[in-house]
């Protein structure tokens, strides 16, 4: 008999999604439709509660999870990764008993705590102290347990001074910190966590990650759902990759993460919105295309020793809008590599379109990243069109495209193999002082 503590057997979950409603063009049609609405609404609402496998083929039914099976052994830190809508959160909700699976079953041995949100059940009228007790007991603690850990929780959150102030007077950061502090002091045998790492300011985030590592190394079983690939490969032993509610890969966390990142990169170097009405943005501006290319290539990977162009095409709809364009690059773990914009202070040469009244029409702004700046990793490009003054985001696309950089060997000594660390890689000035050198450089 194996020593599993979590075991899923063919877990499936069906959900009903909204379908576009028919619009009537005649007055009679509208009236008839109005009178029929209660019947239709009743059928729709009733059908939310239970969906049988027989209805799985309905147009508005989707499989949030489909025949998911896996086992987690005692003491393991187990990662669940996948794109948005892959079913990660549904899986966590099913495991923690918040919803019932449509078929299959999930077995759990031991005391479970699930953490899908920070500060669940906080009431804004109650004080920090009262909310610590409320939130703690909601998460499954006993009053005596909260009593015992209360001082620790408050010290961890760093809101000692405001602990008897109603939470509605807290800043959002303080609320999050208090919520995480309670969660961090849970003491279950099995912990299910969803994406709660990235909360608070940088120093508090560091504290959170430290706490997570303690939990992970404390011999407890942890199920960890995240977008943050860096955190998953750092914290987890094993992982599964979900796609469309199906487990597509199971194995060592590092392998699953690197395969996921490699496959996620099969994009062209461009994303384009053919229908401007659906393009990201609003009434003032919309982004219609984002692309990256280098001199010889318009598809990733781009050579490390050639300049790289990042480009955005955008439609200005508001006559006279004054805008600037900002690009942001992030690495696969989601950390910022660089951010830049076409302001005179941040550009090599002045861009005359920066913050000047624009007439309606399509504009193209290009930014050149010099050769030998980026490392041979995968980058994700986010773009914002912002109006001035004051800064107001008119259109924005996060992670519009991802692209990788190819190590052509031009920036690497032949005798050095292996992965080059760092999110950037550039030629820098080097010098050494000391006793005089005595001959020619070695030929390697």
């Amino acid at each position, binding site marked *: 008999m194996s020593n599993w503590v979590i075991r899923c057997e063919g877990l499936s979950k069906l959900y009903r999604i909204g379908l576009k409603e028919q619009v009537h063009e005649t007055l009679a049609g509208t009236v008839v439709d109005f009178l029929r609405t209660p019947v239709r609404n009743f059928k729709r609402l009733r059908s*939310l509660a239970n969906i049988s496998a027989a209805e799985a083929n309905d147009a508005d039914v989707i499989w949030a999870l489909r025949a998911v099976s896996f086992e987690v052994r005692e003491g393991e830190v187990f990662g669940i990764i996948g794109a948005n809508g892959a079913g990660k959160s549904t899986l966590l909700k099913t495991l923690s008993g*918040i919803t019932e699976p449509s078929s299959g079953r999930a077995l759990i041995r031991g005391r479970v705590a699930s953490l899908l949100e920070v500060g*669940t059940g906080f009431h804004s009228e109650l004080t920090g102290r009262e909310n610590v007790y409320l939130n703690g007991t909601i998460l499954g603690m006993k009053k005596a347990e909260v009593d015992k850990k209360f001082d620790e929780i408050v010290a961890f959150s760093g809101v000692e001074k405001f602990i008897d102030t109603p939470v509605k007077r807290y800043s959002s950061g303080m609320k999050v910190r208090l919520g995480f502090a309670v969660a961090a002091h849970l003491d279950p045998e099995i912990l299910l966590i969803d994406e709660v790492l990235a909360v608070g300011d940088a120093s508090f985030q560091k504290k959170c990650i430290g706490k997570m590592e303690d939990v992970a190394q404390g011999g407890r079983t942890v199920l960890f759902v995240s977008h943050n690939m860096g955190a998953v490969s750092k914290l987890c032993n094993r992982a599964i990759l979900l796609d469309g509610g199906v487990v597509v890969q199971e194995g060592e966390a590092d392998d699953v993460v690197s395969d996921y990142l490699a496959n996620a990169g099969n994009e062209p170097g461009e994303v384009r919105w053919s229908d401007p009405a659906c393009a990201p943005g609003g009434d003032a501006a919309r982004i219609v295309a984002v692309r990256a290319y280098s001199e010889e290539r318009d598809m990733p990977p781009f050579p490390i020793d050639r300049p790289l162009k990042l480009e955005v095409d955008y439609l200005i709809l508001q006559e006279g809008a004054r805008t600037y364009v900002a690009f942001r690059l992030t690495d696969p773990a989601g950390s910022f590599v660089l951010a830049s914009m076409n302001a005179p202070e941040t550009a090599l040469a002045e861009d005359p379109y920066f913050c000047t009244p624009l007439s309606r029409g399509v504009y193209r702004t290009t930014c050149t990243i010099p050769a030998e700046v980026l490392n041979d990793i995968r980058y994700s490009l986010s773009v914002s069109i912002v109006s001035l003054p004051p800064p107001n985001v008119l259109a924005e696309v996060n992670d519009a495209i991802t692209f990788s950089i190819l190590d052509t060997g031009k920036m690497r000594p032949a005798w050095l193999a292996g992965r080059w660390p760092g999110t950037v890689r550039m030629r820098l000035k080097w010098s050494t002082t000391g006793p005089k050198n005595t001959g020619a450089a070695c030929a390697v």
Partner: protein
Amino acid sequence: MLDLREFFAYRDLFYFLVARDIKVVYKQTVLGFMWAILRPVFSMIVFSVVFGRLAKVPSDGIPYPIFSYAALVPWTYFQTSISNSTNSLVANSNVITKVYFPRIIIPLGPVAAGLVDFVIALSIIGLMMLWYGVAPTTALVFVPLMVLIMILSAAGIGLWLSVLAIQYRDVRFAMQFVVQLLMYAEPVVWPASLIPQKYRLLYGLYPMAGVIEGFRSALLGRTPMPWDLIGMGSVTAVGLFVLGSFYFRRMERTLADVA
């Protein structure tokens, strides 16, 4: 029916949710818990003028203010508890979709929290009895029984309607006038002695009829305890509670999906 062991394991959560409901009601008010007294007192004044003076509704020979107040205290509890309990799952849907705990804690919370207001309002009856020179009798020992029936009916209805309300938000709107209807259907402003004898037992099926008449008898001691009404009412109250619990247990697992 009810998973009592699980409920017991989460008793601390129940305690804090009830404490939250109690603390939050009168937050940022000047009068605070005095509202627990003022609400039934104002109703009493209105009823005494409109029904007692103007409409001359009979009151079994009891001064109309104390006649109506003795009924308004349990009625206010019942009304507040069932509306809060009905809305409770909707109001707490953010918690339901994020954490697992026995859901039954949520609709039962307002039923327990309402007891604080109830006890505060009840204490005023003592003063009124002094004022009107009504001496308590031994029937006072039946008050806890009335309270029990009252709690069971409120809990039973809350369990039913909270589940319906989270799936069909119509319930919340319907609730507003159903509550008014329920008030005139029970002997708050008029005595149950107005009901023709042949319909009396049938009328007793409405649990609050027995509770309210029973309250008057137990507190004021002017009329005999209406055991026929109370008997019928307890059957309905227990029935509502048992069936409500079953229904809740059956629907509990779908709550997060329909919320």
